[in-house]
């Protein structure tokens, strides 16, 4: 039945999203590796990233991960329920 197939297809893609989330988080949190440090800018005109900016960036990533994680967790539960209905 095309309806069920579509459903389980959706569920697989949902799981893919769940799997990708930590990867996305790791990439976003790897961005600080690119920032110039205090030593890097010593003697040049550039300014190092200020700690407050760094805090804001890192915690925004964190918040996004929590919110996305919660949303996906809800979806996973929802699709679990559907899956069981579909199976039995």
């Amino acid at each position, binding site marked *: 039945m095309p309806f069920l197939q579509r459903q389980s297809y959706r569920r697989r893609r949902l799981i893919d999203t769940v799997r990708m989330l930590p990867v996305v988080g790791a990439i976003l*949190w790897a961005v600080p590796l690119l920032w110039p*440090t205090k030593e890097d800018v010593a003697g040049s005109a550039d300014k190092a990233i200020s700690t407050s900016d760094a*805090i804001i960036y890192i915690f925004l990533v*964190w918040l996004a991960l929590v919110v996305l994680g919660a949303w996906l967790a809800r979806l996973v539960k929802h699709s679990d329920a559907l899956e069981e209905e579909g199976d039995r």
Partner: protein
Amino acid sequence: MGTLNILVGVCLMYVVFLFFVAFVAERAAIRGQSGWLRSPLIYTLSLSIYCTAWTFYGAVGYAARSGLEYLTIYIGPTLVVVGWWWVLRKLVRIGRTQRITSIADLISSRYGKSNLLAVGVTILAVIGTTPYIALQLQSVTISFDVFSNAYGESLTQTSQDSNALWVASGLALFTIVFGTRNLDVNERHHGVVMAIAVEAIVKLFALLAVGVFVVWGVAGGVGDIFARIDSSALGQWQMRGDRWAALIFLSAAAFLCLPRMFQVMVIENEEEDHLRTASWAFPLYLMVMSLFVVPIAVVGLDLMPAGSNPDFFVLTVPLATGNDGLAMLSFLGGFSSATSMVIVAALALSTMVSNHIVMPIWLSTQSSGASVSGDVRHVVLLSRRISIAAVVFLGYLYFRLSGGGAALASIGLISFAGVAQFLPVLLGGIFWRGATRTGALVGLTVGFVIWAYALLLPSFGTGTLISETVLAEGPYGIGWLRPQAFFGITGMDPLIHAILWSILLNTVSFFVASLVGFPSPLERLQGAQFVNVFEHSSTPQGWSGSLAQSEDLMVMAQRIIGAREAQSLFEKEAKRQGVSGLLPEPSPDFLQSLERELAGSVGAATAHAMIGQIVGGASVSVEDLMAVADETAQMMEYSSRLEAKSEEQARTARQLRQANDKLTQLSEQKDNFLSQVSHELRTPMTSIRAFSEILRDSERLTDDEKIKYSSIIHDEAIRLTRLLDDLLDLSVLENGQVNLNQQTGVLSDVLDHALSSALTGNAFAELKIIRQLSREKLSLTTDLDRLSQVFINLIANAQKYCDAEKPVLRVEVGRGDAQLVVDFIDNGSGISKEDQTVIFEKFARTGEQRVSGAGLGLAICREIMTRLGGTVDYLPGQGGAAFRVTLPEQVALAAQ
């Protein structure tokens, strides 16, 4: 000592409160009212034992020293938990299906229930955790010290030590009371989990309270605190990239491998679904925990005199600003962090020590074997209790010996790096079937040796355990083995250096040794079980025993899991097997499940050994492995059979549909026939009635008229008779009551007779007949009258239905394989495809009813031919209507 007394009083009250919480939770669990104990929230909060006193106090100190580096310690676990679908979900599932009791049990179970591996992991875990426990004790004592200093009461070294001893004893007592209350087969401790959940709230609340106070009480809100941060010494990004990446990796690895984390995450997990909630709730907890760390550090650096210990800003900042209540709360937060860590760590380590070291030794000293020894249950509990006390005391000892100096502060990351050595073996075990016991042993050994050599020993300070010359020039002057510059690569951060080389070489040697070695059957079985835990969650059969051993097993089980539990387990199994009495057959299934029950109490390796002692012999053979493979093959076969079956069903359904269509068509034909037959019967009847009435009622009829009318009546009566004869004939033929009158004759004579009968008196259509007389000279032995009846019918049909302008009928005689064939082919428009399927049915009449007829002729023909041992079929594709009559060869041969 007044303030200190208050402090001690508050502490005691808090501890009493914890005991009370744990007690209530245990009671509720026993009475089965544990619904609220099993909420995902409790699970998430219990994970927070990751945040120890080291993170509660230490994070602020860390931030004050190294800026945002402290965040790595939280970011790693966040990524692991957010990625729950990858590893945690699998770990939890394996933990539940295999009744894993600790990380050592998991690793030993995976690699063929090897006790050597379990002992190794246990010892390494103790080495890695003891300094950490010491660190907790230190933080509690120092926080006492800080408090008393603030009130001008300085503690002597001895009273500090005795404080630590008191705290250690209290923690050991709590762990013993609630951690070894019962020998639960599932190894879950509701009291402990509830208590640490409460402590998680206390420490979060305390840190938040201090944070809020600092931001809005000391500084002037968010804007001001950001300004203060940027203008402070920490104001600019100063993170080294290698440390950032490596520490995130390290904390993620440690989060998975720390024995205490494994305990709360996998062992105490009530439901797999809780992980789903924790996947976002725990990162949220970590985020909130780390939110105010930098503000507190910056304000502390501003506020406190230079040279004060930044590790205790959380405590000293409220004290310095005169907020005694807040300081007290903060003290309780730190106390909570320390105690919950020690409790769970002691619990996890004691399980490992007792299951993998004490019990095997004890069992081997019992010469008589497991079945006849004393009360094993009691021994297990006792060994757990002693192990708890020993682990906590070891921590205390470490604290005393290290002198509580600054060396301890750096021990957190060193400890992390130590347990992170489990990571390759752990992940390899659950994702790679090829990982072997030898590989695990080699990998762990290499990793730990490098860790100890490059990180642990130098951490005690140059000259204590490792000499200056070794550090500078390498052992025996071998330059490329310098502890902090392997292969001559200098200039690396010592911590990063050690992590990189230990994990890298650990992984490589684990991999290579696994590739080279050859695993035992049990290892391969367990490997398949672990790696494919989602495909088949059952364990394969391993044991085979005889009935005589059931009693021994019962005796042993009673001693380990308790008499009542064991009896009900055996009784249930006996009932399932349909055996009368209490003792079931020791079927492989039963032995397997019994082993798992026992494993819940004493660990997989010990349980395996105990059952092995009673049942004896190698438990897994190549044949068993083959059986497992067979099972898989059978399942595949089964599914392909199912597929075939469903195809067959689809075919049957198609056939049924066809049959149904035919039936419907036939029923329609019957209705048509009935109306036709009544019409056919009525027409002659009407004329018979009419003419007989004329004959009866009219007196002035001439003789000619009389003859004419009577002959009409006569003809109509004949027509009626013929119709009735046909019906009768058909029914006789169908019932098989016909008697064949065997005669011998020549085919051409039969055809001659048939043609003359069929064509006489039908002048209205001139049917031209084409025959092959030479071929017709065949003698036949059969019922010639019946055969001729068939021919007449076919010829008459051609005459009646052939719609060509100049109708021609060809009669062709031929020989097929072992049969004689006579074809009647006309040059009309033939019979449509739909009609072809039904013309031989009774009552069938083709589309337009141009010519009258009851539709019985062909049905009769078919019946006759069947009786004669031949057939009559429609022959499609001849350019007109064509019928083929076949006769068995012997009919013709017999006469030659």
